[in-house]
């Protein structure tokens, strides 16, 4: 996804002379081409996130269209107040690109695990929060971001994310996509780096004869409420899957909306626990340890789903 991001920004920068790209000394090798092509519009501000956001605000106040890159945790928490006041209060056209969603940087340890970033960014007025689920969504969101008004937080994994969509001609920030439509009254809503896992969950459930609906919901704020309404009408069970703390992420946003809709069915959030990961390991290891592999999630979903089917039958 990072590669999709940087290639798309390079294309945009070629067309729009106002696009600036800032990094806080991260993204080794990622920006070589951009830097060579547009040296005056590339700034490595050094290991100084607060200054990066302030400089981005100054550029945006002067009519520039700014992208800021760093590791998601540093980008959202080290300079939180600059984001809050300089970007969100003034509603500036600055895009924050955070790499390393959830446990993407597993072995790097807690300092690099982004488990609260969505929750924190979501709480800011004027901020839009997007977690693309594959390189196609990443490219689409970056392409649209160039003309998007106001601050935008875009959350990526690392690299080598599998492709889920063939193409996405109708992609819009703020809109979810139905990837597969099932017939069992079971809906899975996934966001960001867990989209490939959710797709595998769907396939596993299908192999067990349970045809679920899968929705990709890259935009967590503003949430696609009309799509959630549709799900609520059609589903007896809704599960969200995300690589973020179960507090304050996609699941919480969907829950808020379902509450407003008086949804009566089963709803469960699947995500990272509300704790700093006690285990040491790479991303896949950590996900496995926490029962977040496709098989484990499929087991959980089918158990809970069968339970409510039985209750409905009784």
């Amino acid at each position, binding site marked *: 996804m990072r590669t999709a991001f940087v290639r798309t920004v390079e294309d945009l920068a070629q067309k729009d002379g106002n696009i600036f790209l800032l990094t806080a000394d991260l993204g080794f090798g990622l920006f070589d081409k951009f830097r060579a092509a547009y040296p005056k519009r590339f700034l490595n501000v050094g290991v100084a996130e*607060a200054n990066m956001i302030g*400089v981005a605000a*100054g*550029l945006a106040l*002067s009519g*520039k269209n700014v992208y800021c890159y760093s590791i998601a945790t540093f980008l959202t928490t080290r300079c939180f107040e*600059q984001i809050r006041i300089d970007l969100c209060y*003034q509603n500036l056209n600055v895009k924050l690109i955070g790499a390393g969603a959830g446990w993407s940087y597993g072995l790097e340890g807690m300092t690099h695990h982004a488990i609260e970033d969505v929750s924190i960014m979501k709480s800011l007025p004027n901020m839009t929060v997007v977690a693309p689920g594959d390189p196609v969504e990443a490219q689409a969101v970056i392409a649209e971001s160039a003309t998007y008004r106001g601050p935008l937080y875009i959350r990526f994994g690392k690299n080598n994310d599998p492709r889920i969509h063939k193409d996405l001609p109708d992609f819009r920030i703020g809109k979810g996509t139905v990837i597969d439509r099932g017939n069992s009254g079971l809906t899975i809503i996934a966001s960001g780096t867990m989209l490939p896992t959710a797709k595998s969950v769907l396939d596993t459930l299908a192999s067990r004869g349970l045809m679920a609906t899968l929705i990709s919901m890259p935009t967590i704020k503003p949430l696609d409420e009309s799509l959630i309404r549709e799900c609520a009408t059609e589903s007896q069970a809704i599960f969200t899957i995300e690589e973020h703390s179960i507090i304050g992420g996609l699941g919480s946003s969907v829950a808020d909306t379902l509450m407003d809709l008086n949804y009566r069915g089963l709803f469960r959030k699947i995500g990272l626990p509300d704790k700093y990961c006690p285990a040491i390991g790479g991303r896949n290891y950590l996900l496995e340890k926490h029962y977040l592999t496709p098989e484990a999630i499929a087991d959980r979903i089918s158990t809970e789903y069968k339970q409510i089917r039985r209750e409905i039958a009784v």
Partner: protein
Amino acid sequence: MPDSTIDEYKIIARRVRRELLDMVYRSSSPHIGSSLSIVEILVALYFRCLRVSPDKPHDENRDRFVLSKGHGCPAFYATLAHRGFLGSYVLSGFAVNGGILEQHPTCNVEQGIEVSTGSLGHGLSIGAGMAIAAKHDQALYHIFVLLSDGEMDEGSVWEAMMFASHHRLDNLIAIVDYNKIQALGRTNEVVNLEPLADKWRSFGWRVEEIDGHDFEQIVSAFEKVLLQQGKPNVIIAHTVKGKGVSFMEDRLLWHYKCLDQDEYTKAMMEIS
């Protein structure tokens, strides 16, 4: 600079002081000392140095002013009003329920307010971003950022200082209102800033040190820094907190205290 011009600035400064005392008295607002210390700097900026005009507030080539010490905004609003950016009805909406202006500025270019400030340590980075944009566009405007001395405690200011000198932002001018009193005490007792000028110099800035209440020195410093090339410039303005009102001068109390009726009357008499 002829004496008559200086006399004119002094008259404006007196008006600005009276105006700001009216505003803070009406609304029982704090930060009076921090406002009184920057009056001469603001008057020199808005009546001499800045190329800005209330008729063309959005002019792309205007100079930019960032009040990084946003809490000094009563003086800023009063100066903007005298310069024609704000109507007196706007000032009457300062810090009242349902009003127009808060006790820290909100960005409104139409009104001459370029940036929202109020939390310290943001303005110099924003000014640096504006300076980069100006360089990129080969525009000739300058960016002035007014910081407080207490604000210099913020690490982000030092990040911005390094960044600005690295990029040789000679279109960026920082001004430090060095009144030597911050919220809870004297700056040299809270966290000593000295040797302040040497610190700026060692971060790659050219330094001017002036008496921040002497128009001759302020204007001459502005004229000098506008001609400098290759480095960002800082003007360390030695000022007096509460300047112009005898019982407020150099007194910590007037960082937060509001005026009562007797104090207001006495202060206004001193300034007329």
